[in-house]
């Protein structure tokens, strides 16, 4: 399923597996990132100079009230948006200045995105929804695509649901199809934007368990935007946002990773 030797991520994985000379390059490195929008004649700053580093194998929750900039951050991390200033390194590559086509390429190969409202194509089967990123990254035969999609669906426990359409699945199952789609290219990074926002408690639990397992068993780096304190507590690290700034960054087990006071924020 994996495409060996593609990009830095692949090479790094090889080094890691050998256990020698491990290069700890962060998966995500944001430096003084700002993002401004024009709303009418007013300039709104959604991100106000963000510095954030997320290492390989971390599982991070990003929390904050609506309008705090966490969605904008997620769009930036997901290569759907580019910073107004500052730089964003994804797997050691500066993606803040990539062209539209290069961003599309990066989206399809280097990360998987899980959405609050699943965002599955309603007319397509689960299998064909999971295949979609492979269709756009190209280079796969129809057989290879199906094989990879089956494997991803098996991984999220939907082996029985290949040919179901989204509306024939429960919310939790739909979200797991979404996770399978994020997994199908075997990226190191999974971004989840309110993945449990539309789910009941039981399904939420399933999805969180699934994401935890991907982090702990498969070594995926996972970033979750959430409102839900339970979800946040299930992760290893919590980054809190307010007004486009990081106001808190702590490990869930209590030890502050990097606590910011207000003076530091303003500088």
């Amino acid at each position, binding site marked *: 399923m994996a495409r060996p030797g593609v990009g830095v991520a692949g090479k790094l994985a090889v080094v890691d597996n050998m256990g020698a000379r491990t290069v700890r390059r962060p998966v995500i490195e944001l430096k003084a990132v700002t993002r401004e929008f024009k709303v009418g004649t007013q300039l709104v700053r959604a991100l106000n100079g963000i510095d954030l580093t997320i290492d390989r194998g971390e599982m991070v929750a990003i929390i904050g009230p609506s309008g705090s900039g966490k969605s904008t951050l997620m769009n930036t991390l997901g290569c759907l948006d580019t910073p107004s200033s500052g730089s964003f390194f994804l797997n050691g590559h500066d993606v803040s200045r990539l062209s*539209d086509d290069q961003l599309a390429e990066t989206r399809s190969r280097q990360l998987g*995105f899980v959405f609050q409202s699943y*965002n599955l194509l309603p007319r397509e089967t689960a299998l064909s929804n999971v295949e979609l990123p492979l*269709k756009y990254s190209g280079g796969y035969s129809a057989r290879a695509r199906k094989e990879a999609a089956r494997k991803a669906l098996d991984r999220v426990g939907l082996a029985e649901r290949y040919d179901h359409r989204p509306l024939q699945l429960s919310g939790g199952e739909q979200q797991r199809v979404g996770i399978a789609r994020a997994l199908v290219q075997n990226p190191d990074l999974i971004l989840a934007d309110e993945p449990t926002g539309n789910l009941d408690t039981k399904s939420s639990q399933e999805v969180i368990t699934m994401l935890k397992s991907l982090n702990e068993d498969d070594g995926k780096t996972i970033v979750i935007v959430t409102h839900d304190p339970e979800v946040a507590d299930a992760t290893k690290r919590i980054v809190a946002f307010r007004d486009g700034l990081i106001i808190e960054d702590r490990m869930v087990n209590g030890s502050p990773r990097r606590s910011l006071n207000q003076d530091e924020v303003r500088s």
Partner: protein
Amino acid sequence: MNFGLLFTTALGSLSSNKLRASLTLLGIVIGVSSVIAMMAVGRGAQVSVTSRISELGTDLITVRPGAQALRFAFFGGGGNSDVVSLGDALSLDDEVFSPNARVIAPENSFSGTATFGRENTFVNGVGVTAEYIEARNLKIASGRNISNIDVQNDSLVAVLGSATSEALFGQRDSVGSTIKISNREFTVVGVLKSQQGTIFNPDNSVLIPITTAYYRMNNGKGPRESISVSAINILAKSEKVVDAARLEISTVLRLNHELDADEEDDFLITTQQDTIETLEGTQGTFVILLGSIAGISLLVGGIGVMNIMLVSVTERTREIGIRRAVGAKRRDILLQFVTEAVMMTFGGGVLGVVAGWAIAHFGNGATVSGDVIETVIEAQIAVLALAVSVAVGLFFGIYPAVRAASLNPIEALRHE
């Protein structure tokens, strides 16, 4: 995305809204089929006119008075010029100067009303010699032809066209009866076979000796050689020597008319080939006109495609967002929508060609207000119509596709 994937993706999208896709397709089908059918009718008319002219014989050469007089002659009036005379016709009958001219048939025209008892009918009168019917490929149905003795004697004899005979006598045999043309009494000596369908329809005509027409109907004066004629019909010895015959005729007439080398001809020689070319040109314009009218319906079909594609882009904004989020480039989205549009127009084009061909095929020989419609289907038109339908898809599909491709993925994902 490779072509196969693009194709299946587009097909999937189209089949998810079959009624809409089929109605859009129908617009193109109607456009393309009407282009095909109209062109077939137009080409059919062109071919039938050509073949009717050829029926007169491709070895026919016609000499008329100069260009100005010709215009009158062409629209039914007589040549009002004295430039071409019976003397010219006589001098063309010469083995030495014009060896390639075979049958020389001068004609003169007059118009009037033919009366028998209480019946009367308007006739196209033609003053002729015995050679006329051979030159114009006419047949005698009953009685006899105008003879050269009739011509010598300025006899009051007439050969009637079939329609003229029927108008005056019904089904009865008119040969031997006496009719009045412009208050002069003529004895009917023969009736022509009906030639319905040929372009120079002789059925309404009356043939009388050319001398009679000149001296008695048109009150002409002077010796026979000076009788002015509206045309001289000449058959070449064969189709191959038409051009040679034409040159000989020109030479003889220039000598007769004592034209200097720097003077232009005061007569006009036309061969059947010239006539066919002129008429084909006119008909070509007609075909283009028909095609353009049909083309408008294709244009309307194309606008329908654009309309539906624009609606589709709006409806599928979220789908576009999802595709972009999982790695589709702008180009992928653009191609997907263009492919959908082209598939509809190409599909419509194929069905339209089949439908147009069927209309033309089954419409061939149909009668519309008395005229028989002939159709000719040409492969080039079908290929052209297909190419145009693809072009229509590209043209009208590109704008909606550009709109789809330029959507911001974040906003598209937020779209409900």
